[in-house]
């Protein structure tokens, strides 16, 4: 076995150990608990009290993810009308910038929207002395949808803009643009759109940070409460089983879609000068979706800046939380650096077996683990004399790694699958060793993927709450923990200052990720050649000017 193969195998083992380790440790503890107390096995089943909570969680997540994806599709197709000639590529890149907002934690949106609604109520919009009701399931749904919207737009952009251009154009010759969208573009984009919707579903169903602020109890919070009440990891693990089964089913669906959704797209999915003529009803819906996107972008900035600006103690708050800010940045940076090599190994492993649903399921299943359960699992694994990491700063880093490694693997796989095989074949011919080829050809070609993955890992760990809240060492707190604690005392100007710091850090990292992802997936304008499949749909090769790629 060559050293390169050993490194790949080691990286893959590290990926599975980091992603599955906490849950395996917890599963082992739960199994021993059930052996000691067989009656405890019954807690794996939902009770009369938890059934409605589970149903509400699934319904809520389904509604939020579907709404976000529909809005994303409307926004992307609506913006296609703005494309004109040479500005098309720039317009596409500008749309990728929306992805930068995906790193803003949802509870920051919650604070912004709550304070905005309070301010609007103060203007007397709802009548003198009356407040606009902004609480409960609908408020939580609105905020969650808007928090997910940037990610939904990015997923819709990937799905829709990589429908092979020639297939769309062949339809345009026959039918109006609305029919082409309905019968050709959407069906061809469906696997990626469904996969995106499933990803948003998992994010929503496993997150309790927004819903708990609006007094809506979801199942993910139940797990945290179960652990907090008894401090019994095994009981918390058993109570999480129903939610994990739901999530595993969704992941299994994703694993079936992945091979089709993640296949290398034909480049040049968009025609530079194409300006579709949509039906009037669709145009109205797109207009509404664009207004919602504008609100999702503008409201957090305006609201938090307004709150922070009126705060007499803004600078004092910043000074008091310098430790938390520095600690958060250090944890996030460490987590993404630790997660990258194993994620790369997993990405290369998936690339070697792109049509294996089992491999995809194994790589994606950690996305179905509730964050609080990962935290509890880490304590179970490392609160031992053998590996006494509990109580150290390694724990929040490991929590971040366990949370983001699967996503980073998917991003790196996406970049790997987009590499021109001819370039890699040439590398294999001329390399002096596999390491030489990897170092001089493969890794430099994957650089945009590394930058994107690092930035995504950084920003997700920066906003991570569920696991960090459980494993943070005594006396240390991350910025998100401080914000979340403050939020439960009521929205204040101090929280707004901290949220602004988090927002700016997330935006900076998100901008780096958006630029890198845009370089990976973005509209290549007039570069238009690639074989698709046996059907042989490709771009134009007669004219050298169009052959581009």
């Amino acid at each position: 076995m060559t050293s390169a193969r050993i490194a790949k195998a080691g990286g893959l083992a590290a990926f599975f150990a980091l992603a599955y380790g906490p849950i395996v440790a917890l599963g082992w503890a739960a199994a021993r608990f059930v052996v000691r107390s067989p009656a405890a096995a019954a807690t794996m089943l939902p009770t009369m009290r938890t059934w409605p909570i589970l149903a509400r969680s699934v319904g809520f997540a389904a509604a939020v993810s579907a709404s976000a994806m529909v809005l994303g599709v409307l926004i992307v197709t609506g913006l296609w009308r703005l494309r004109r000639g040479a500005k098309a590529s720039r317009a596409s890149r500008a749309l990728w910038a929306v992805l930068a907002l995906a790193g803003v934690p949802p509870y920051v949106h919650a604070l912004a929207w709550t304070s905005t609604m309070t301010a609007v109520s103060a203007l007397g919009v709802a009548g003198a002395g009356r407040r606009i009701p902004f609480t409960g399931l609908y408020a939580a749904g609105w905020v969650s949808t808007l928090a997910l919207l940037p990610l939904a737009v990015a997923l819709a952009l990937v799905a829709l803009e990589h429908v092979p251009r020639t297939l769309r154009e062949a339809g345009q010759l026959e039918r109006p643009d609305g029919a082409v969208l309905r019968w050709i573009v959407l069906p061809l984009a469906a696997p990626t759109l469904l996969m995106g919707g499933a990803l948003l579903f998992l994010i929503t169903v496993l997150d309790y940070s927004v819903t708990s602020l609006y007094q809506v109890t979801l199942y993910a919070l139940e797990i945290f409460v179960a652990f907090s009440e008894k401090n019994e990891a095994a009981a918390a693990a058993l109570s999480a089983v129903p939610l994990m089964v739901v999530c595993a089913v969704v992941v299994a669906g994703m694993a079936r879609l992945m091979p089709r959704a993640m296949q290398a797209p034909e480049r040049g999915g968009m025609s530079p000068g194409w300006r579709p003529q949509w039906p009037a009803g669709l145009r109205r819906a797109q207009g509404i979706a664009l207004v919602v996107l504008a609100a999702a972008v503008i409201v957090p900035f305006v609201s938090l800046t307004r709150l922070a600006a009126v705060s007499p103690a803004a600078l004092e708050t910043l000074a008091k939380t310098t430790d938390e800010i520095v600690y958060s940045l250090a944890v996030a940076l460490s987590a993404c650096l630790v997660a990258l090599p194993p994620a790369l190994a997993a990405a290369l492993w998936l690339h070697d077996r792109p049509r294996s649903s089992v491999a995809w399921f194994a790589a994606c299943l950690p996305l179905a683990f509730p964050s609080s359960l990962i935290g509890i699992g880490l304590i179970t694994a490392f609160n031992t004399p053998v590996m006494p990491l509990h109580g150290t700063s390694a724990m929040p880093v490991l929590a971040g790694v366990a949370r983001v490694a699967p996503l980073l693997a998917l991003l790196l796989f996406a970049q790997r699958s987009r590499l021109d095989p001819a370039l890699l074949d040439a590398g294999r011919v001329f390399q002096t060793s596999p390491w030489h080829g990897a170092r001089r050809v493969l890794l430099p070609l994957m650089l945009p993927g590394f930058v994107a993955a690092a930035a995504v890992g950084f920003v997700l760990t920066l906003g991570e709450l569920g696991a960090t809240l459980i494993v943070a060492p005594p006396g240390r707190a991350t910025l998100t923990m401080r914000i979340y604690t403050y939020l439960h005392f009521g929205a204040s100007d101090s929280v707004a200052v901290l949220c602004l710091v988090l927002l700016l850090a997330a935006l900076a990292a998100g901008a780096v990720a958006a630029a890198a992802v845009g370089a990976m997936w973005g509209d290549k304008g007039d570069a238009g050649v690639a074989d698709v499949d046996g059907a042989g749909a490709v771009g134009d090769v007669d004219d050298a000017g169009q052959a581009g790629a």
Partner: protein
Amino acid sequence: MNLQITDLTFARGDRTILDGLSLTVASGERCVILGPSGSGKTTLLRLIAGLERPAGGEIRLDGTVVSAPPPARMTPPHARGIAMALQFPALWPHMTVLDNVTFGLAAHDRRGAQAIGEARLADVGLAGYGGRYPHQLSGGEAKRVALARALAPDRPLLLLDEPLVHVEPALRDTLLAVIDARLRASGATVVYVTHDAAEGDGVGGRQVWMKDGRVQ
């Protein structure tokens, strides 16, 4: 349908692909465009189809301007009364072969569209292939389906971009005969792009030589 192209210019970045090209094709005429790779043949067809917008000049169909530089309004491809076989088959992988061929027959009821689609498939030697999916076809069969799709709607202007490339030589004469029969039946105008002079002779009609974005 009468096609009139006047002083057509098209560039991609700094590269000029069509440079003041003018061409008239009378109603019912067959015009074969020959030329080497990179001469702008495919771009010309894409401009006629409305898939690209010219930087200068104009294209008229039956006297109506359908393509001109901004701010003029472009007539969308499906509203031009054209059918086109793209250089590559571009079959929609989620549709059956028959669904691909009948996609442009929205004006017909389902049964009528299916009958036309099956007839066109039989014309190109693919009777019984309607239920297959594109991935179940060979490259040559996919080209024949694309040709059947272009012939199915009986549009007054037919644009054919290298329709017989990748088709077995033994079948070429048969397919040329199919195209000829359909054109005689419909009286459609044809612009046929090929780099093969012998194939151009088989199509008949007027031959035009393109080089460096101009008609020679």
